[in-house]
């Protein structure tokens, strides 16, 4: 069965790029959201196998969305990978505190991203 990934970013460029990588280089299905609030809703509706989510977004940031997904039974177990420009330890720690499973920094390396996704979803 095809695995589904919810890609969340307020940047059209990042969404475009991540979608392209997933569609051209993997067999995963891709659904998108453009802020944290929409991500929480889409996660409940779509039940993705993994969420790949930016941190700094309007309306609700990635940390808050991550916390909300962890509070809801239907999304509690979904692996969440946060994507950010900031790689400082304290910032990453805040991400893990919010409940994310992993972190990847921008600029995204496609090979690194695919390997990370495969570690959660298989090839």
């Amino acid at each position: 069965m095809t695995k589904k990934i919810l890609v969340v970013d307020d940047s059209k460029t990042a969404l475009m790029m991540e979608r392209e990588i997933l569609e051209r280089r993997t067999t995963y299905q891709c659904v998108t959201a453009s802020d944290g609030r929409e991500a929480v809703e889409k996660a409940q509706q779509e039940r993705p196998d993994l969420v790949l989510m930016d941190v700094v977004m309007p309306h609700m940031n990635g940390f808050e969305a991550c916390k909300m997904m962890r509070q809801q039974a239907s999304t509690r177990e979904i692996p969440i990978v946060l994507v950010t420009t900031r790689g400082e330890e304290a910032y990453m720690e805040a991400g893990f505190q919010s409940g994310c499973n992993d972190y990847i920094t921008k600029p995204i390396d496609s090979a690194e991203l695919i390997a990370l996704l495969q570690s959660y979803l298989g090839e």
Partner: protein
Amino acid sequence: MNRDQHKAFGRTEADAMNDLRLGAARKRLAESQGQEDAIDAVREIVANFLGSEELGLFRVDRRSSALRAFWSFGIDLEGYDLLQALGDAGLERVMRGECHVELAAGEHAGEMGRARAFVPIRVGGQTIAILAILRLLPQKLDFDGADMELFKLFSDEAAKPLFGPGAFGPDGPGTNSDSQPVTEGPGIRA
């Protein structure tokens, strides 16, 4: 897989990634709707693909050749001396249409040794603006060959989305009503 095959695979992977990046950047710029969205596109491309959140855009006045800060993100350009940063040779290079790229001089080199790039935004064989990428994110150590291709894309394809059809008019830049300066607070978004 032997070492040569590994190298070839690595190169193919890097080439494919570069093609994806260029394609996405080109599409984003071409599909931008109006100046504000085009500026967003530039900011997003620089942040997501080049790894910088300190950038500025300077317009070149066609009549006086003066440079003026037009927009910035993550850095306050008030008092920023582009001419000093570029130097005479750098300015000449950029006005000629070449990128002026300074690679990082090593992790202990300090402010002066950090990577920077000045990219001419061109139309009709003229440099009408300069995109200055002033600091890379800590995880991005330096510019690489693929980044040069993105610089070229900005140089060749960013003028129209950023400054509208007026950038192509007989009087050149500065005559388009869509070319008002945009001010964006530093570091507001990432």
